[in-house]
Every structure is written in structure tokens, then in C-alpha cells.
């Protein structure tokens, strides 16, 4: 599971380089995210633009990371591909997360905040 991070003053963005987060990699994803976000800015933006496939294990891992960061820090999402977007919509998890069209938009929100 390859993740790329970029830290700015108020937000850290994490780009998933793999094209899937599935049952085979969900636990590894969760552990890597916990390491990366151990400390740092309050806002964490997860860039999923390269992820073509997310199953319920991957979704559960993303929810787990959000729970782990709460209540003081937020996990937001960016760049959902159509299939991934549909998984969030069908499970109504799209109402739980702040979802940005792209990581650039998410970061510009931080600048104006």
C-alpha cells in the first residue's frame, strides 16, 4: 500500500497511489494512515483520485481512520472516481464525510478558512 503525503500549515493531504483499497490491503491501509496522521494538522484530506476500486473492507478502513482522528481532527475525502463515489452513496457514507471534487479544491478551502 503506497501513500504519498504533503503537509501544509493547516492541512495534510494523503494520496493513495494504489488503484484499489480492498480486503487484501484494507488493514495495511488503516495502519499506514494511523502512522502518517499520528500528529500534524487538524485536517486530513485523503486523495482517492487514483483509486478505481473500493470494497466494503476498504470503506470500513476509511471509516476507522475517521473515527481514530475524531473528535479533534477531521478526515475529508477528495477526487472520488465514479465507482468509489457510488460505494459511498449506496452506503450513505457520503453524508458522513466532507467530499471535495479534488485535493486542490480541498486545500484551497483551507487557505480561505
Amino acid at each position, binding site marked *: 500500500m503506497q501513500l504519498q503525503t504533503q503537509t501544509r500549515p493547516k492541512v495534510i493531504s494523503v494520496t493513495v497511489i494504489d488503484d*484499489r483499497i*480492498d*480486503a*487484501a490491503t484494507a488493514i495495511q491501509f488503516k495502519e499506514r494512515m494511523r502512522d502518517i496522521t499520528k500528529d500534524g494538522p487538524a485536517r486530513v484530506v485523503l486523495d482517492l483520485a487514483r483509486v*478505481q*476500486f473500493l*470494497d*466494503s*473492507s476498504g*470503506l*470500513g*478502513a476509511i*471509516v*476507522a481512520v*475517521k*473515527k481514530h482522528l*475524531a*473528535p479533534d481532527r477531521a478526515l475529508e475525502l477528495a477526487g472520488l472516481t*465514479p*465507482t468509489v463515489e*457510488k*460505494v459511498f452513496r*449506496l*452506503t*450513505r*457514507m457520503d*453524508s*458522513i464525510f466532507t467530499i471535495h471534487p479534488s485535493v486542490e479544491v480541498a486545500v484551497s478551502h483551507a487557505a480561505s478558512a
Partner: protein
Amino acid sequence: MQPARDVQFPAGGLHLTFTASPFDVRDSLAQMLATPPLCDLPASMRGMAELVLAEVLNNVAEHAYPAGPGPVTVTLTPVAGGTQCLIVDQGLAMPGGRVPVGDLPSATTDVGDLPEGGFGWHLIHSLTRDLTYQRTGACNRLSFLLPNEG
């Protein structure tokens, strides 16, 4: 361990036997998506087919064979209105002899109370039709239709 694989192509369909473990499921999904009938579907439907089959097969790997990987057979048949799917394994029966409902958490659930699992059956129910489970002898038989869009 090298997965024991058996592939047949009956009349535009696919009949595939492999070992149900997370990495074998991933490899087998790639194979299913690259061959008829799934490779002939539009991209968005292929994505949903992959999702449903991943959920079903990972459930088999995790719950039917908790003690270690076992064999699973997937039969995909193109029919009017979609793709008919049959998944057969020789593992533990479903609890209560039926398919879990897959309830979603309420939209007002606190972040701390959100479940980290259980989304799979909801996705399967949402994306299939005629979902049927039978325990026959030592086999689980799950069948459903992956409907064509529109």
C-alpha cells in the same frame, strides 16, 4: 500457495474454480473481468459487477472458511437482462440459514459509533436481484442476477 484453478467457458459464460483467500479473490476478479461475459459490459457496470463479486467472495473467504482457504466456484451466465451468477463453496453455512440483511447505520449516528464493517451485504442487496441462498448437503449456493442498466 498456488491457487488451484479450473476455468471453463460454457456458451459465452465463465465457470471458474479457485481458492478463496483475499489475494486469490483479487487475482480471480481480474481474470473474471477480463473475460466474457463481464468484459463485454460497459465500464460502470463492470465496476459494480466487480464490487458485488468481491463482497460475495470475500465473505466466503472470511466467514465460510474461517480456519483457512477452501475452494469456491463462480459460474457467470449471460441472460436476458443481465448476468446470472452462482457462487458455490463447501464452507460453513450462513448463520440462521439465510443471507444477512445488511442494515445501514442511521444518518444521525455519531462518528464514534459508526460501524467499520457490515456494509458488504447492503451493497450486495442494493446491486443485485433475485438473491437466493441454499444450503445443499455440505455446499453453500448463492445465486443472483447482476442487472443490466437502464
